[in-house]
């Protein structure tokens, strides 16, 4: 949890693998990296066993680059595809039982605040739609009701992709899947409205076909969660296997879905706007100057 944990132990540097050396010497720790610099520095995320062309992986990759202070960040996850990539990264990852990720993150976040005081340590939960909206629903909602200060990111692939294609609460009505051959009979859960009414200070939907927007959304959510309250990001990360999307059409699908049912939305409370403007200089949230009075 500091820049020291990515240094070589004295005398061991020549025995370390190349990837580790690159991470120490050219990683993002202690620097400000952005998506426009991608391809020119060593990323936190390493090789992982996710499927080729997976949009969820792309989102996780963008998210890891967007963390404001990666050296002070811990990710929390649960069963699902996402943890296969999130765990293959150079920042600590906590793997809870299925569905308790927001409960684990609550304790972790409180503990870090007790231990480190005002020095910001970010806790980011990244879990799938099943882990968050079905099995972990109570932990997720209650962490929001309790105003726990950490970021919750749902990797919404609208299916249980890891176990063969069962419908989840976030699957769209009528969707026919391998393990839901008659089609889903109920509407997609409105987690965004629940997040707002439960008291999240920042709620956004995002699709990974706009890397700069993903970066902006994640930075805002993590910064707000440091002091104001819970933040929630819902990201459309299609499952190209269960929804049979050819891998080279994954971004085309993301673009179509963004234009259809996953348009970019952002909800920021006034308190969070003021915090971002005053503490981190977000110009978009600064109070508008009064219009100049012109003499007639």
């Amino acid at each position, binding site marked *: 949890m500091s820049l020291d944990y990515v240094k070589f132990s004295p005398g061991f540097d020549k025995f370390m693998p*190349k*990837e580790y050396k*690159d991470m120490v*010497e*050219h990683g993002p720790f202690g620097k400000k990296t952005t*998506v*426009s*610099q*991608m*391809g*020119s*520095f*060593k*990323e*936190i*995320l*390493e*090789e*992982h066993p*996710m499927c*080729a*062309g*997976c*949009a969820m*992986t*792309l989102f996780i*990759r*963008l998210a890891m680059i967007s963390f404001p202070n990666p050296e002070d960040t811990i990710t929390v996850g649960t069963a699902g595809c996402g943890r296969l990539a999130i765990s293959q990264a150079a920042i600590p990852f906590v793997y809870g039982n299925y569905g308790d990720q927001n409960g684990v993150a609550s304790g972790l976040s409180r503990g870090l605040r007790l231990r480190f005081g005002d020095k910001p340590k970010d806790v980011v939960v990244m879990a799938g739609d099943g882990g968050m909206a079905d099995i972990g629903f109570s932990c997720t909602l209650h962490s929001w009701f309790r105003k726990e200060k950490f970021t919750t990111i749902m990797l919404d692939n609208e299916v249980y992709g890891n176990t063969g294609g069962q419908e989840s609460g976030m699957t769209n009505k009528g969707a026919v899947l391998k393990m839901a051959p008659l089609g889903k009979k109920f509407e997609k859960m409105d987690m965004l409205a629940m997040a707002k009414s439960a008291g999240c200070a920042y709620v956004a939907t995002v699709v990974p*076909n706009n*890397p700069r927007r993903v970066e902006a959304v994640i930075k805002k959510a993590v910064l707000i969660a440091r002091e104001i309250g819970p933040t929630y990001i819902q990201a459309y990360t299609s499952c190209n296997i269960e929804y049979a999307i050819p*891998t*080279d*059409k*994954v*971004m*085309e699908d993301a673009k179509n879905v963004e234009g259809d049912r996953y348009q970019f939305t952002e909800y920021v409370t006034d308190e969070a706007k003021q915090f971002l403007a005053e503490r981190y200089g977000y110009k978009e949230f600064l109070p508008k100057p009064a219009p100049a009075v012109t003499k007639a």
Partner: protein
Amino acid sequence: MYLVADINVDICAQTSCKLCTQFCPEANTILYNDQAGRDKGYKYGAAYVAVDRCKGCAQCVWVCDNMAKHNAIKMIMIDQLPNAAITDNIVYGEKSTTAVLAGPAVG
């Protein structure tokens, strides 16, 4: 044999869009060398693929063809690449990376 992405330096180095580096789902797979094109007299550098990390999804091809409209990336069989970058031969610099190209070892 299997397909990997291959980026045409002569097309890529004419612009500095870098979109493929932002849309690849694999980390540190499409990298950017800001001298690759300048060596050949172009205005910008060029992206290249670390073939040992490429899973062959061709998302970069769609992005280059449809978003950037440069058509600089093609999928080709790995044993037909004359020279390629692999992770062991990639050197990170301050703001860019370079790779010593070698024939990909295909067993």
